[in-house]
């Protein structure tokens, strides 16, 4: 088992460095590639997804390797161009993917604390004089990644809905991730920022408060590409759904993210709300 682990690790590393053509050849021949967007460091992501990849490798006819895209955009591109077989995607990238590359076979969506939606919040410093969203006009605002669902698109929509447009802010900035947003607000660099709920929770006691919660958005989704053999799609969906009951299922899921409690079936319509938001924002 350990040998396999090591093997996989080395393989993944090679994959990361290998030119795409070689990877394609290899994919065709030997592996299924599992793509992940770089929401964490490659190393961290490798650790988190190893159990899942191992599980899939064991259950599928070919071993599965992990591929962490360099950027969110490239991740979408890879999935859209069918350069990976299976992918884990955030809701906004998924909406973008569909918009740009057409529909992809959906496998399953995750459930966080029993729910398959998640929320974000617009936060301000605890002692901030800002009481309503309208007060944000003329203030600095921190967003996470420009492609981030909960640190950009959704809160931006919420602002828009409250009548606050981005140009009305004194300044705004994309500062990569949720933690930076929270810290930026805490440090006083930004009057407000947008973060997802669990990140807020982590810093809730450090001196921030919620100005407003965002509407719930369907969570992350596992998709397949057209490269993955279509005859095996059902098998793949089953494998994922079986994680809820598998003896190692819980461990596999929580290793990806602690708050994940299970997986469930997914439909494209689940993302309409978000699709709507994104369309509006754009």
């Amino acid at each position, binding site marked *: 088992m350990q040998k396999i682990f090591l093997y996989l690790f080395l393989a993944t590393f090679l994959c990361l460095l290998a030119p795409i053509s070689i990877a394609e050849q290899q994919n065709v021949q030997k592996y299924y590639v599992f793509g992940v967007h770089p929401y964490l460091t490659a190393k961290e992501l490798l650790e988190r997804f190893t159990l899942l990849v191992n599980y899939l490798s064991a259950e599928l006819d070919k071993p599965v390797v992990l591929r962490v895209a360099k950027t969110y955009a490239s991740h979408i591109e890879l999935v859209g161009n069918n350069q990976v077989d299976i992918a884990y995607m955030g809701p906004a990238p998924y909406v973008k993917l569909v918009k740009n590359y057409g529909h992809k076979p959906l496998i399953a969506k995750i459930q966080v604390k029993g729910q398959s939606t998640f929320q974000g919040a617009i936060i301000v410093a605890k002692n901030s004089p800002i009481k309503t969203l309208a007060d944000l006009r003329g203030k600095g605002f921190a967003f996470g990644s420009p492609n981030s669902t909960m640190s950009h698109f959704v809160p931006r929509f919420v602002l828009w809905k409250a009548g606050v447009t981005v140009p009305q802010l004194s300044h705004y900035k994309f500062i990569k991730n949720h933690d*930076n947003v929270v810290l930026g607000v805490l440090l006083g660099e930004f009057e407000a920022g947008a973060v997802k709920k669990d990140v807020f929770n982590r810093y809730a006691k450090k*001196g921030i408060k919620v100005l407003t919660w965002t509407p719930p958005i369907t969570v992350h989704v596992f998709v397949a590409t057209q490269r993955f053999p279509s005859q095996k799609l059902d098998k793949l969906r089953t494998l994922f759904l079986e994680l809820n009951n598998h003896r190692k299922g819980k461990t596999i899921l929580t290793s990806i993210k602690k708050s994940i409690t299970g997986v469930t079936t997914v439909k494209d319509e689940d993302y309409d709300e978000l699709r709507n938001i994104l369309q509006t924002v754009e």
Partner: protein
Amino acid sequence: MVGKRALRFGTMFERVPPAYPPYETTKHNNGVNPTMSKKNASLQHGRLFFLFILILLIFFVFASLLVASQQRNLLLENEKQHDNLEFDLIGEFISESFLKNDYVAVRQFLQNWSEKREYIVTLTATAKNGFQFVNYTRKNPAENTYLVKRRVSFSQDNYLDLEIANDLASIENIINELNWQLLLIFSIIMGLLGFILWITLTKIALIPLEREISKRTEELRQHRDHLEQLVLERTQELATAKEIAEFASRAKSDFLSNMSHELRTPLNGILGYAQILRRDKELSTQQLDGVNIIQQSGQHLLTLINDILDLSKIEARKMELYATAFHLPNFLESLAGIINMRAQEKDTTFIYEHNNALPSGVEADEKRLRQVLINLLGNAVKFTDQGTVTLRVSVLNDTPPTPKKIRFEIIDTGVGMTPEQLDKIFLPFEQVGETERRAAGTGLGLTISRQLVELMESELHVKSELEKGSTFWFDLTLPVVTAEAEFKSSRRGEIIGYQGKRRKVLVVDDKHANRLVLHGMLKPLGFEVIEAVNGKEEVEKACEIHPDIILTDLVMPVMTGFEAVQKIRQMPELKDIIIVAASASVFESDQERCKIIGCNGFLPKPVEADRLFCLMEKLLKVEWVYEDTKTETIEESSEVGQLVPPPAEEIAILFELVMDGDMRGIRKRASVIEQRAPELFPFARKLQSLAKGFQEKQLLALIEQFKEGGK
């Protein structure tokens, strides 16, 4: 000016004596063998080395402490600087990251950075608004920390206050480690340096120094030798001078002794014959007066000689006291008798007061005590023309145990002295009073008396008032002993012979005059006097005639008296013979020697007839026959100071003579009265003395007293 000064210095240097070292410092160099000095040198080297090491060690310790503390501060400063340097880097990173709004990265970095540095105990990064951006605390807390602070500005109006508490222990550990290393290096350096220094000192610096020291030592030694030479020379000079002085002193003493001896010898003739002549009944008053004058002058001369001799003895500190046991009351009474006689010659009353507690036997130098008392009493009588002279003897401590403290007071109602005179009386040859009184003494009496009293461990006091009189007194502490009253040889009149068989007396003297004196004294009393001129003859004659008593001179040609006595004592048949040494020698040693070789007595020259008779009475047990035994009792019973007047017809003649102012006639009459009866002798003497002084009033008073009494 310069020249002058130089000259002055030059002379100064010449005059400045060489600085001789104290004797001790050079002492050990003198005559010490080389191994000893080598040993000393090595010992000194050892001491020097020890001192050197000690100084080095102290320096080392101080230096270490200084360096250690300096090191600590330096290290701390260094550490702070190092932190600051790191902060600079961190600050840049923070600014950079904050510009990119990558707060997480900064946070993560600071966290990791702190964890990697074990010495960081806490790290806090606080934003301007008070938000604690990072709050890192090490798992194990530290006791002592030091803070490093830095503010990192990352935007126009925002900053992070970084505060790091560093563990001092870790730095102290580093300091300790460093110190140990330092110590080691320092020790090595010091050791090497010390070694080099020591070698330099001993081999290079000390050798010339030692050479210099030894050179100086040599110089000093020479100086000292020179000095010693000088001292030796001076000592020799002094010794020679002392010898000369001693020789001179001895010569003086010898001269005085010899002179005294030589003067005594003719005096023996003069005084001897004066005594013999005085006994001659055929002499007229005028002739008797002449003899008396001869005797008095001789006596005076003798006193003078004796006084000078005594003074020279005292000055040479050769005067010694010979304490003997004697009967004090008898001694004082005999003294009183002598003084009473002198007092009666003048219009002076002599009173002898004594207290009953007087011990009978005491131990003292009888001769010298007598000398003092006679001197003081004699003076008192001399300076008192009318009134009283009192000898008062009292015991001061009445408690029974010995010794007794006895006070002798001589009180007169005479002329007295002024305070100026009082100051001078004890000086030799100083005499106070009128010229006529001065003639009667040497001026040495009081000087000698005071010295003698001081020899007796007492002090002679005097108080005096002009025209009122003087009082001399001294206290003697005398041990009380049992002493029998000696046979009292008091004057009972003229000795005219003795009872019993005829005694043979051998008189030995090389001088004819001396032999004649003794012959003249003894022959009229009925002794058979045989003469010898030296020791040899003495022994021969002694063997031949077996005398009852030998009176022998000591210093004689052919054979001395000492040798002769020794020879005689060695002969069995002569060993019990009575021998009396008669000598003008003034040496007590001669008297002692006489006793040792077997003389039975000592008779000083000039010979006093009374003394000779007294001695013979004691030794030969002869019973003297006096001129008139009846008068004895009268004189014995007569009270001291009471004059026996002649019959009324004599008083009447005397009265007439006084009224006529015929002093010569009174003196003639006095001689006649003197012849009449011995008890009239004092009266006659008084008449003589008053008439001699032409004291008519006193004469008249004396005669009228008896004339009226006679009525």
